[in-house]
């Protein structure tokens, strides 16, 4: 039991867990029987690896060598659509899954197939996010799939293409199987960064019409033009094939629904199955005419998209409350649907989403995305393309569904703007208070002007959709790049202190030799040494990205992503083409360890150079010993000004560090043909990154996690949450457009937000977040004791959901390291 004295207020999520432990009936189950029944069938079970996608993809690719890649890809999709097992799940109202029943993940051998052999052996027992595979499937992987891809995968090509000085900061071994965790590439464990399709196009036009568009273009090609025939023709043929493929896939579901209905005894279920069959016969081939059809069409589209490629963080859902609303409104007006039925359909999608695991087979991918991370962001709220508030009845229904059916799917994101209605913010705050970490908030007042400055029209910028963890997309204007570098800047600081070396990697020189820090006489010398290492890391990251971009088009194509994109269709170019005319290519690199580096520099500036309370020699020696026997030095370091307290001393260092990255990006991004902007979003990478970094001058002990995102170091923010927001604001360089998302975690105890007054204060806190133009914020509303209890007794707390880094996960799915990291994040309880 929880200690009642300390946790006298429980969040409703905690209350639900306690009720479950006490064996009390959960009222929500009674109100949402279908969704809970489906949930019970897979909740808390270990995921299985399904090999069908990889098998059929490989079979087809084997047959089509030599043809245009986009055409090969489309043919592979057609082969998958014709052969992959289709399923109708009991109780479900939506059909379409890309693998076996229960929790499952699928394989993308074209990406990192060289890991496959190792993966089938290690995945079942991996500490972070394990998955199992049947012996027969393991045989298929090792004998049928992996051999074909040997020497052909993107990862192998990248490993070979990186020159030695870039390679040594990227990988730890010649084959590139293990990351150095210094300047970490992420392009080899996902085909692209996050993405959102223009789902409205599917709902309003259907794939038949999209195919017609491609056919018209084919007919209009100049039969004598080499470009038209060599470049555009295979592209357009691929578009036709992929449109047919998804329609075939949906027809196979329709047929199965009919057969299942024939054998169904229960008349109610029989009718449901027949209705599902009719729906799949119609969509996504034709435009949707009802809410149910719209949901089914969207669902098949996103599932088919998952079969096509491994989009970073899983394909996002876009502005669901906007594109679904016309169908909802019409059904309501014509008496075809009730609010309860619409909510049930949404829940059917949430439980279906929850069964798909974004499987990372490489050890690095696994470490970066613990707890089966997923960011299939569903966007609600925000503004219409002409800049008015966009909130509607569905926006509220999504929030209601999140409160009543608390699953960590979907990743609900609310767009906040200056004119957001009070009711919307109130319900957002109430949902946050429930304690599952939803919704995360993205700020229109930051994103929109920034996107306009990057080249979007106002209309497009107003209509952005949240994508992945904390990014934003304009689905017909953005193009994308491969996953960017995650850069361990705490390692850069370590190289300053060890003259280009790291304790973890011994005598090997990895960075610049910036000199023995004992010889630094002034703060400026230290700062310049840091800036030099910082710049070297950026150079390495940009170099990587340049190579990645040049390789990408040879390895990946995305026919369905392209047929849904205005610019791809206009110019007959696959979405993986590095430069698409009129497109805005938005990418980023990641600053990891922000708080750690700021606080470390601040401590040295203050204690070594200004107050002279500590000599550099003493500091280095204490760090060499991981502060063993020198707790006095560690405590002294921790007493220096820290980021996250609205303290100008620390925040100005933060701003200067940010500026180093912005200046570099401003100068060199254009050479990559993209916006390679500065982002502060860790996923869970701050944990593996921390494992290679020895003791830091902010008192952080060796090998422990770094600070996450743009949040303060663990326990360093002692002035309360208002100061956390203000520090974040103060450390930004608002004059630069080379900035991207900053992830900010705030943890509250439920007591702090108790009652109506607590909600009111949270609403005004969110309004101020909006005023301050911070990009993102998310909240963990939980008692520390609950986390500790769950760590001790995972069986009982199987359904405890916590917010991590732009996503929520089951706490018990996380490694002990990450669990401890969450426990250590300071909770604001000054009440």
């Amino acid at each position, binding site marked *: 039991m929880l200690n009642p004295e300390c946790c006298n207020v429980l969040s409703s999520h905690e209350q639900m867990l306690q009720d479950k432990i006490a064996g009390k009936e959960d009222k929500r189950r009674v109100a949402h029987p279908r969704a809970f029944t489906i949930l019970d069938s897979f909740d808390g079970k270990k995921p299985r690896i399904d090999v069908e996608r990889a098998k059929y993809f490989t079979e087809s690719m084997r047959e089509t060598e030599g043809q245009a890649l986009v055409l090969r890809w489309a043919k592979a999709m057609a082969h998958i659509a014709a052969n992959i097992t289709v399923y109708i799940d009991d109780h479900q109202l939506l059909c379409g899954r890309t693998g076996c029943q229960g929790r499952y993940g699928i394989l993308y051998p074209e990406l990192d197939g060289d890991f496959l052999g190792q993966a089938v052996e290690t995945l079942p027992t991996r500490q972070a996010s394990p998955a199992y595979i049947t012996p027969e499937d393991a045989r298929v992987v090792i004998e049928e799939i992996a051999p074909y891809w040997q020497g052909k995968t993107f990862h192998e090509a990248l490993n070979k293409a990186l020159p030695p000085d870039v390679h040594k900061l990227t990988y730890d071994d010649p084959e590139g199987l293990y990351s150095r965790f210094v300047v970490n590439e992420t392009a080899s464990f996902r085909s692209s960064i996050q993405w959102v399709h223009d789902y409205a196009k599917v709902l309003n036009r259907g794939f038949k019409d999209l195919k017609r568009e491609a056919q018209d273009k084919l007919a209009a090609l100049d039969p004598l033009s080499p470009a038209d025939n060599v470049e555009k023709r295979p592209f357009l043929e691929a578009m036709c094939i992929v449109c047919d493929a998804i329609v075939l896939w949906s027809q196979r579901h329709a047929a199965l629904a009919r057969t299942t209905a024939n054998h169904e005894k229960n008349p109610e279920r029989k009718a449901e199955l027949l209705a599902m069959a009719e729906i799949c016969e119609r969509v996504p081939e034709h435009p949707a005419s009802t809410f149910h059809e719209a949901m089914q069409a969207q669902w098949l589209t996103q599932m088919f998209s998952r079969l096509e490629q491994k989009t970073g963080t899983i394909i996002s859902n876009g502005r669901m409350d906007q594109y679904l609303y016309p169908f909802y409104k019409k059904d309501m007006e014509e008496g075809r649907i009730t609010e309860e039925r619409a909510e049930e359909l949404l829940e059917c999608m949430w439980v279906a989403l929850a069964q798909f695991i974004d499987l990372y087979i490489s050890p690095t991918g696994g470490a970066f995305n613990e707890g089966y991370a997923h960011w299939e962001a569903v966007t609600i709220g925000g503004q219409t393309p002409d800049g008015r508030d966009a909130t509607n009845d569905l926006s509220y229904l999504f929030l209601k569904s999140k409160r009543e059916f608390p699953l960590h799917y979907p990743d609900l994101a609310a767009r906040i703007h200056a004119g957001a209605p009070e009711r919307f913010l109130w319900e957002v705050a109430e949902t946050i208070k429930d304690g599952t970490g939803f919704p995360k908030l993205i700020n229109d007042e930051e994103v929109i002007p920034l996107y306009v400055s990057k080249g979007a029209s106002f209309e497009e910028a107003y209509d952005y959709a949240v994508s992945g963890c904390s990014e934003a997309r304009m689905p017909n204007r953005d193009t994308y790049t491969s996953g960017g570098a995650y850069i361990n800047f705490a390692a850069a600081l370590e190289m300053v202190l060890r003259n280009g070396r790291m304790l973890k990697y011994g005598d090997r020189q990895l960075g610049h030799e910036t000199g023995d820090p004992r010889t630094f006489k002034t703060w400026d010398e230290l700062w310049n040494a840091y800036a030099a290492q910082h710049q070297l890391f950026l150079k390495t990251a940009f170099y990587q990205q340049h190579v990645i971009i040049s390789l990408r088009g040879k390895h990946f194509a995305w026919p369905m992503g392209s047929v849904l994109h205005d610019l791809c269709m206009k110019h007959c170019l696959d979405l993986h083409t590095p430069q698409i005319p009129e497109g805005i290519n938005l990418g980023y690199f990641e600053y990891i360890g922000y708080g750690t580096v700021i606080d470390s520099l601040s401590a040295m500036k203050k204690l070594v150079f200004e107050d002279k309370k500590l000599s550099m020699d003493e500091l280095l020696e204490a760090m060499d010993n991981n502060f063993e026997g020198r707790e006095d030095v560690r405590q002294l370091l921790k007493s220096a000004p820290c980021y996250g307290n609205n303290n100008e001393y620390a925040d100005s260092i933060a701003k200067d560090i940010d500026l180093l990255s912005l200046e570099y990006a401003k100068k060199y991004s254009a050479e990559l043909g993209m916006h390679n902007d500065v982002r502060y979003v860790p996923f869970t990478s701050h944990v593996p990154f921390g494992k290679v970094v020895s003791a830091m001058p902010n008192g952080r002990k060796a090998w422990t996690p770094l600070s996450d995102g743009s949040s303060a170091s663990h326990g360093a923010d002692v002035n*309360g949450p208002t100061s956390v927001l203000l520090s974040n604001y103060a450390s930004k360089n608002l004059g630069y457009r080379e900035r991207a998302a900053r992830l900010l975690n705030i943890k509250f105890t439920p007591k702090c937000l108790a009652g109506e007054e607590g909600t009111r204060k949270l609403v005004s806190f969110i309004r101020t977040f909006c005023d301050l133009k911070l990009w993102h914020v998310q909240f963990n509303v939980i008692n520390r004791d609950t986390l500790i209890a769950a760590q001790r007794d995972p069986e009982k707390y199987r359904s405890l959901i916590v917010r991590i880094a732009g996503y929520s996960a089951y706490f018990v799915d996380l490694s002990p390291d990450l669990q401890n990291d969450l426990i250590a994040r300071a909770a604001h309880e000054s009440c």
Partner: protein
Amino acid sequence: MTSGKDRATSGLVFNIQKYSVHDGPGIRTLVFLKGCPLACRWCSNPESQSFKVELAVNQGRCLGVDQCTRCFKACPAQAISIQEGKPAFNRTLCVGCARPCVDACPASGVIAYGESKTVDEVLRLVEQDGQFYARSGGGLTLSGGEPLAQPEFSLALLREAGRRRIDRAMETCGHAPWQLLAEASGLLNAIMFDIKSLNAKRHLEFTGRPPDVAVDNLQRLVKERPSLPVHVRTPVIPGFNDTEQDIEDICLFLAELPSITYELLPYHRLGTQKYHFLGREAPMGEATLASETFLRLEALARTRLGAKYTA
């Protein structure tokens, strides 16, 4: 009084706490003024009572003399010696210079409660959260100690905060000359007023003074400042006022006062360790308040006062 004079007025402050959400409307910053005319036995901020800077030691943070000897090397009065591996502070030898040992301790284990600050210095810190006040209807809350026990400073703070358009609230025990309270209340947007007990004997025994001044002041305040929101609070303390009779008496008194709101606060022991830091014994010892008792008294207050009870 001119703004320039007010800005330069200084007083003794022992804490400034951001994001306070339970002491007045909206998101607020609490400024704690040092010194109080009462010495309540249950006081959870014992460092607030004295009007002087006080030295305190958190032995739990001390690293031990094998790791660190900075504090006794720093003491100019040899008031610190080593006993059982840890520094011992002799408060009679201490000359109250405070800073050298505080600055020397790397672990923040030696604390000086109280720092002289000008109105301008305080309000610069308070204004940092201005955007949060604007959105939430919050602002500055003066607390203590007893803010009115530093009259010039607290009035200057309130006047200057008013000039800077900061919303102003104050927590008071009510033990101040009426004229002073009247002047302060004219500068306030809200006040939180403690009525601890109407039992004169016990009030004297537990706080050092009888309740009369506070009771009179509250009656007058409500009468003469009818538009000022007054929130009355009673800390429920075991052995002092935790009976039906005590609460009933207060409720009867409050029922006569128009337009006040009321709240009971449960006794807690979170201040106990600060007594130890100050080298004092916590006067309440191990006493605790049963939550059933508190809930029963709350129910009583709610019955007697209806909508006035706003906890």
